[in-house]
């Protein structure tokens, strides 16, 4: 791992990371201070998640003469339109390069609503920087406390390390891949279950992505049940409802409720939905202590955060939503890697587990083989 490599494939943006963090802090409106097209795709997706994302729409004139007035106007406008209880203002490359100062317009707008100012651009090497800047600002305005801030910071540092070790930041260039054929992998899981092999089903998901990764846990449990092999399965998931920012805790609660309703027992709760960078260590310890003789493991979410130490003798099937994650996972020793390509858009704005492509495939293949 070389921390100084220049990574040439496009990578997640710090601006977008700030936007998602503001969402987790339950802001009602996020104002992007910059050009109208900046972060368009994610801004739109976030609207599906219930927050209003607007832009100061700086144009060529705005770049030259600054966007002070535009920001004041947009703040007044959103306050009137949406009656928010909490607002976030997020910088962009253009506004930060021209030296826009966001505090002054926020003061001038003089709203009776707390405003989290995030002076961020997309030029940071790690997008987690965007989360940290947003959290620092949230701490300043008293939206989170120091303990939660420090907890988040430690998690983000570890998330960055996970990406550097085996993730999208591990290589100068990683080609995107759709991974292995889901049908074949589904057949293999059914085969393993039929053979009476014992399997671990581990969900180590990042926040709202858990709504879909949990479906894989559900599908395997359903199929194991149908095959009379339910006892051969042990489920682990990071769905601790007491940990994380408000929205993240809510996601954990919703997923846990759904799993319960579907009769899936989580044998090991391995942490909060924001603890995906460190939950791997808990998993590693649990396997070492209790499950080292299992035959296979299906790991969904952020599989590359699970150390290989005590799973390398198992047949590994991993499910990711990162097309650039396929190659690193294969190189780590995961035999089957599948990609849930359109996971993220489908997990925004939901409160229940959503069907995954692999879960659906597994259910269909199981029907054929029963």
């Amino acid at each position: 791992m070389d921390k100084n490599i220049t990574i040439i494939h496009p990578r997640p943006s710090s601006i977008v990371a700030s936007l998602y963090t503001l969402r987790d802090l339950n802001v009602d409106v996020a104002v992007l201070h910059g050009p109208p097209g900046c972060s368009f795709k994610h801004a739109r997706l976030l609207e599906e998640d219930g927050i209003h994302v607007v832009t100061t729409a700086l144009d060529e004139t705005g770049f030259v003469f600054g966007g002070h007035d535009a920001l004041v106007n947009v703040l007044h406008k959103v306050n009137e339109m949406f009656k928010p209880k909490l607002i976030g203002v997020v910088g962009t490359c253009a506004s930060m390069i021209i030296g826009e100062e966001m505090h002054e317009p926020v003061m001038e707008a003089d709203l009776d609503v707390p405003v989290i100012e995030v002076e961020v651009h997309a030029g940071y090497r790690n997008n987690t920087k965007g989360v940290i800047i947003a959290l620092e600002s949230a701490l300043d305005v008293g939206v989170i406390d120091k303990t939660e801030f420090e907890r988040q910071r430690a998690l983000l540092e570890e998330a960055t390390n996970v990406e550097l070790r085996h993730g999208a930041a591990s290589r100068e260039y990683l080609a995107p891949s759709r991974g292995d054929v889901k049908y074949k992998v589904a057949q293999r899981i059914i085969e393993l279950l039929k053979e009476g092999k014992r399997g671990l089903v581990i969900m180590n998901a990042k926040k709202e992505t858990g709504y879909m990764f949990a479906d894989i846990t559900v599908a395997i449990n359903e199929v194991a049940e149908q095959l009379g092999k339910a006892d051969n399965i042990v489920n682990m998931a990071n769905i601790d409802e007491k940990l994380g920012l408000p929205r993240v805790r809510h996601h954990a609660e919703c997923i846990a409720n759904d799993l319960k309703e579907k009769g899936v027992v989580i044998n090991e709760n391995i942490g909060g939905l924001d603890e995906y960078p460190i939950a791997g260590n808990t998993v590693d310890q649990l396997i070492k202590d209790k499950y080292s003789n299992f035959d296979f493991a299906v790991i969904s979410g952020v599989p590359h955060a699970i150390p290989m130490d005590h799973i390398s003798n198992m047949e590994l099937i991993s499910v990711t939503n990162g097309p650039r994650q396929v190659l690193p996972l294969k190189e780590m020793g995961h035999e089957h890697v599948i990609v849930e390509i359109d996971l993220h858009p489908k997990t925004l704005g939901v409160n229940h587990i959503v069907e995954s492509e692999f879960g659906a495939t597994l259910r269909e293949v199981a029907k054929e083989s029963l």
Partner: protein
Amino acid sequence: MSIQKRIAIYGKGGIGKSSTASNVAAACADEGYTVMIIGCDPKSDSSITLLGGKRIPTILDLLHEEKDVKEEDVVFTGYNGVKCVEVGGPEPGIGCAGRGIIVAIQTLKKISKTLNEMDLIIYDVPGDIVCGGFVAPIRKGLVKEAYVLTSGEYMPLYAANNICRGLAKINTPLSGIICNSRSVSHEKEIVTKFASEIGTDLMAFIPKEQIVQDCERDGFSVMEKAPDSSIAQVYRDLAKAIMQRDTSVMPVALDDEHLRELTR
């Protein structure tokens, strides 16, 4: 028409670029050349002494007002037919003046026919080359050669040297050094040596004379207000030299220690 000369005058802020540019423009106009001066400083004061002390609307002012900018809105005729254009820009500390120059230059290129009809176009560019916008006239292919203005003091020479380094980096030839004197000791000798070591010539030594200030205070160039003064002749000679100049070099900047040595 002879080949159009398109020059930029660079130099440390406050060294006298606008004074020199407007007097050279006026002197060339007196010689019968068609001349345009394009002020690229947000202060928009490059052409003020060619317009009797009056300010003109700038390209960026009009763009800011979202007007459909036409040539007649931004190209004004000053002393002896000199065409005057000001780029304009944001207030100090706000926005991005560099981007402003890029936008204004692109606009001017699109709307101005006069631009192509001139014998000489002078771009008066602010300060050091602090960002990409300040070399936009060069990058956009509007400037073919550069002159650097300095005095014999250390800091203006340091800035001039840096500018030469920047010019070489963007592959722009330097046609000469102009000394705007501050009456420091051995000044002509120092600047002549600097020019020579950079690889070019000292084009003119403009003595420090109160009359330049007096004319500017009244809102005029020396050429207009005091054409018979000795300094008017210096500008006249410089103007001729620039129009006749057909050699330029890729400057080789000096290292810091060598430059310091030169000024001792």
